[in-house]
């Protein structure tokens, strides 16, 4: 009996062992043969392709836009473990992501959602803090690329911004999105029981490729001075806004382009669409007197007048087509003086001498009414009606900058053309694009757009424009010690439905430095300045500040004798 009991026990143990082994075998077969193992062990990881960087003209030393690897943290209220305290989790999250504790705590109540965005962090320590399984649960993360602009608001309107989807939404970011966008990489592999990737089982490894780097023609130092001067003038005169451009004359490169008010590209959603707009090329406005230089250039090119031709400005009021045109200059004055003193009547009469067709042709030759094709989105073409559609009054108003609408970019290009012996260069803002492998994909070269006037005519107008900033000229405040400045003031009434505003103006100054051998041109336009509203009073001083800083920065030697030099020369 005793032996039989032992035998029974042996059989029972053997049967149990057999069953256990059979169970393990079945499980093994299920895992290996049922294709189940592949699904659970499959590991796929998308590698982030960083967006290309944007630099100014100084090269790699000064990035204006960079992409940073970050983590987007989210909350899954249902995944919070019972043993964890919600308050404690909320406190840690709030501390790590810089949020209010109550705000985070409120998100725990949204139990209908399993993906509630908490915030983005660049800091690895925050990641360590929020991924501690002992104290935190329900907080997940996903890798993300975060666009950063190290200089904050600098060049905001040129750079634009990148939206939440990682797509450029304005400016260079939008225009060159396909070059800047990186290509994501991929890892396909298997994981072990601890969900760690088994390297030897890696099947696919496609490395991520960063986007191409963009080098701008803009210089952040000049841009800084321009933005500073623009902000100051807009705030001082309580204006609606303003824009300024600095262009290198020989090549057409844009050295600075600013609009005010500006915005922070990283927090672009805090501002409205109006603020995002690059006013320097997207606002179309009647230029006013700054158009007179183009009118005079056209008349000189057609040999209708010379700088010394005398034209009667009358008694300060001239009626044509039933409409009076007022002027602060009276009597017979030369074309040169008319430009210096900004005579409306003389320029209107020159326009009449030219005739509608020729006037329109010259304006089109200077690229008014057409886009200049700068590599930025939102460029306007301006408004220039065909001459056949002009009424009787228009040939006297277009020459003084009324009845025609332009962009700031068109205006500075026209003046750069006059300063460049009549050769119009295409304005451009991107100097080169370099692939991640270091290969130059694109390199900008100076491009001639046209030659609207002869070189001798351009030189003559250039000389005449120097008078504007001299004693007796309307733009004396634009003068810079040591440098000869050629330029023109412009004060234009703002067009409103049914006519012109009596209170709102555009105050502008556009000119080039040094006038003897121009290197760069500057345009400053201010919208609705108060209480003063003239270009000579409002914009000319801002021009002088920008011109002085840029000339100094570009190391342009003064072309005028300094006060002391004159004294030395006159000293016996």
């Amino acid at each position: 009996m005793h032996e039989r009991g032992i035998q029974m026990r042996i059989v029972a143990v053997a049967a149990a062992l057999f069953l256990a082994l059979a169970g393990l075998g079945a499980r093994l077969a299920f895992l290996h043969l049922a294709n189940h193992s592949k699904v659970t062990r499959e590991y796929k990881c998308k590698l982030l392709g960083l967006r290309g960087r944007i630099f100014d003209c100084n090269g790699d030393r000064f990035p204006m836009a960079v992409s940073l690897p970050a983590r987007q943290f989210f909350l899954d209220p249902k995944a919070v473990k019972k043993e964890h305290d919600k308050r404690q989790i909320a406190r840690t999250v709030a501390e790590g992501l810089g949020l209010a504790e109550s705000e985070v705590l409120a998100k725990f109540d949204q139990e209908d959602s399993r993906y509630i965005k908490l915030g983005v962090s660049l800091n690895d320590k925050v990641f360590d803090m929020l991924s501690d399984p002992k104290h935190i649960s329900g907080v997940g993360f996903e890798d993300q690329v975060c666009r950063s602009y190290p200089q904050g608001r600098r060049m905001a309107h040129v750079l634009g911004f990148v939206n939440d989807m990682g797509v450029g939404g304005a400016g260079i970011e939008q225009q060159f999105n396909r070059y800047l966008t990186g290509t994501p990489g991929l890892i396909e592999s298997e994981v072990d029981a601890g969900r760690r990737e088994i390297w030897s089982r890696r099947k696919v490894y496609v490395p991520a490729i960063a986007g191409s780097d963009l080098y701008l023609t803009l210089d952040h130092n000049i841009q800084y001075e321009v933005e500073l001067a623009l902000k100051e003038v807009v705030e001082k005169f309580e204006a609606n806004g303003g824009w300024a451009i600095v262009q290198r004359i020989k090549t057409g490169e844009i050295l600075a382009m600013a609009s005010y008010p500006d915005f922070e590209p990283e927090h672009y959603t805090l501002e409205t669409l109006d603020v995002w707009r690059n006013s320097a090329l997207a606002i179309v406005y009647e230029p006013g007197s700054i158009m007179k230089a183009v009118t005079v250039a056209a008349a000189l090119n057609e040999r209708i007048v010379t700088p010394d031709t005398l034209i009667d400005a009358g008694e300060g009021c001239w009626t044509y087509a039933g409409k009076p045109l007022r002027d602060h200059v009276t009597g017979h004055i030369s074309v040169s003086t008319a430009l210096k003193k900004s005579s409306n009547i003389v320029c209107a009469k020159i326009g009449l001498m030219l005739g509608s067709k020729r006037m329109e042709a010259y304006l089109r030759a200077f690229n008014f009414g057409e886009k200049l094709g700068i590599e930025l989105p939102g460029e306007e073409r301006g408004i220039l009606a065909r001459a056949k559609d002009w009424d009787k009054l228009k040939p006297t108003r277009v020459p003084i900058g009324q009845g025609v609408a332009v962009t700031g970019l068109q205006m500075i290009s026209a003046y750069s053309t006059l300063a460049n012996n009549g050769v119009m260069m295409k304005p451009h803002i991107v100097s080169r694009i370099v692939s991640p492998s270091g290969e130059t994909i694109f390199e900008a070269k100076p491009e001639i757009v046209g030659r609207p006037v002869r070189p001798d005519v351009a030189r003559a107008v250039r000389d005449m424009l120097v008078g504007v900033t001299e004693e007796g000229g309307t733009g004396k405040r634009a003068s810079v010690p040591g440098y000869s400045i050629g330029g023109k003031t412009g004060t234009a009434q703002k067009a409103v439905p049914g006519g012109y505003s009596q209170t709102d103006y555009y105050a502008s100054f556009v000119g080039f430095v040094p006038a003897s051998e121009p290197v760069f041109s500057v345009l400053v336009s201010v919208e609705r300045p108060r209480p003063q509203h003239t270009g000579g009073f409002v914009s000319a001083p801002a021009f002088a500040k920008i011109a002085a800083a840029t000339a100094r920065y570009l190391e342009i030697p003064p072309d005028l004798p300094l006060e002391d030099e004159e004294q030395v020369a006159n000293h016996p």
Partner: protein
Amino acid sequence: MRRNHKRQVRAKVLPPSVAGIMVLSVSMVLCYWFMDSKCGQLGQEIRKHEQKFSALENERVREEARWNEKKTPEKLEQALLQHGVAMAYPTAEQVVRMDAATGSPAPGQLSVVRFQRNRNAGERVAKTGQK
């Protein structure tokens, strides 16, 4: 010395070729097992290094961005002001321009400086006299 012949057993031994194959198979299995575990170990190390490299690269990019934020023109100006360093560009008469070809001051440049220096000295004398 007496031998115990009765106890001598003539055992059947494996043929040397079979034994060789068996030893070879076992050693191959052991070798494979060793190499597999070594590969696995190396794989884990590579993976760790990959992660470390990626983390360091990300950190470098972030540090670079932090540094770039600190060297903007306004931040530099602020930093200088904080340390009581008021810097300004030299005025035109404070600059002596050199002629690149000759390596000497451009015409008229030194005379301006000399004139300026004499004038400043004169002003100083006048001020001292006033006292």
